[in-house]
């Protein structure tokens, strides 16, 4: 990574991760919470790609492929849970699901 300093790439990953974390903490729409989790996973993958490009190794890209796989599995289960949630509570507000025995 000759053109761009590695710190800038890692700083971008940190900013995106922080934004995703703010989204998880602030938003109450469960679909937007899932979307913010996707943003966080994507920013961690960006950190892996930046590090792999810094040391000219393909291992960072391998880790990104694993993160991608995990994100795909997570979002399929998460969206199925969203469907159950909506059929049960008739809303997408996560504050409605504050009890274990809904």
């Amino acid at each position, binding site marked *: *990574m*000759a*053109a*761009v300093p590695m710190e*800038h*790439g890692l700083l*971008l990953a940190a*900013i*995106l991760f922080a*934004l*995703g974390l*703010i*989204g998880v903490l*602030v*938003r109450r*729409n469960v*679909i*937007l919470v*899932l*979307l*913010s989790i*996707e*943003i966080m996973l*994507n920013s961690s993958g*960006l950190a892996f*790609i*930046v590090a*792999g*490009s810094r040391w*000219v*190794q*393909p*291992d*960072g*890209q*391998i880790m*990104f*492929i*694993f993160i*991608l*796989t*995990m*994100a*795909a*599995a*997570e*979002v*399929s*289960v998460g*969206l*199925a*849970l*969203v*469907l*159950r949630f*909506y059929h*049960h509570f008739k809303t*997408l507000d996560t504050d409605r699901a504050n009890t274990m025995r*809904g």
Partner: protein
Amino acid sequence: MNSLFYVPAAVAVISTILVITSLNTVNALLYAIISLLSIALIFFGLGAPFIAALEVIIYAGAIMVLFVFVIMMLNVGPQAIAEERQWLKIKVWRGPVLLALILMGELAYVISGPSRGACGLTINGPKQVGMVLYGPYVLGVELASLVLLAGAIGAYHLGRRDQPGESDRGQS
């Protein structure tokens, strides 16, 4: 050369801020797609073209389409047509289209400019990634397949309809 990193980085940060602040879910989804596309452009600039393609195909393609499917499924009803007509207003897609045009201009600049390949980066293409993926990391590939199988079974189990006999106690 640095504009291949900094312009998509600015687009990614702006669109992510708009994701977590927009009130409309479809609007947030459009901004999230723009964010993923800009990160794919960053990957391309960092010498990972295979990962850039995967980012566009799987993240911006498959996963976001899953989100769109769920939003569409949750909006079945008489008000769905009115909401859909509301989503097609110019106010909804004006911002994402603007950010996407920035990315498209960036792509056109990179392709047409004389500075192509001057980034000084070593490109790790699909061949290197594949050699390592099925070499030292083959156990990780097996574990990833197990994760995907578990995700498929879990999504099928959670997504099925309630049976009539167990609906009183099986509300999980």
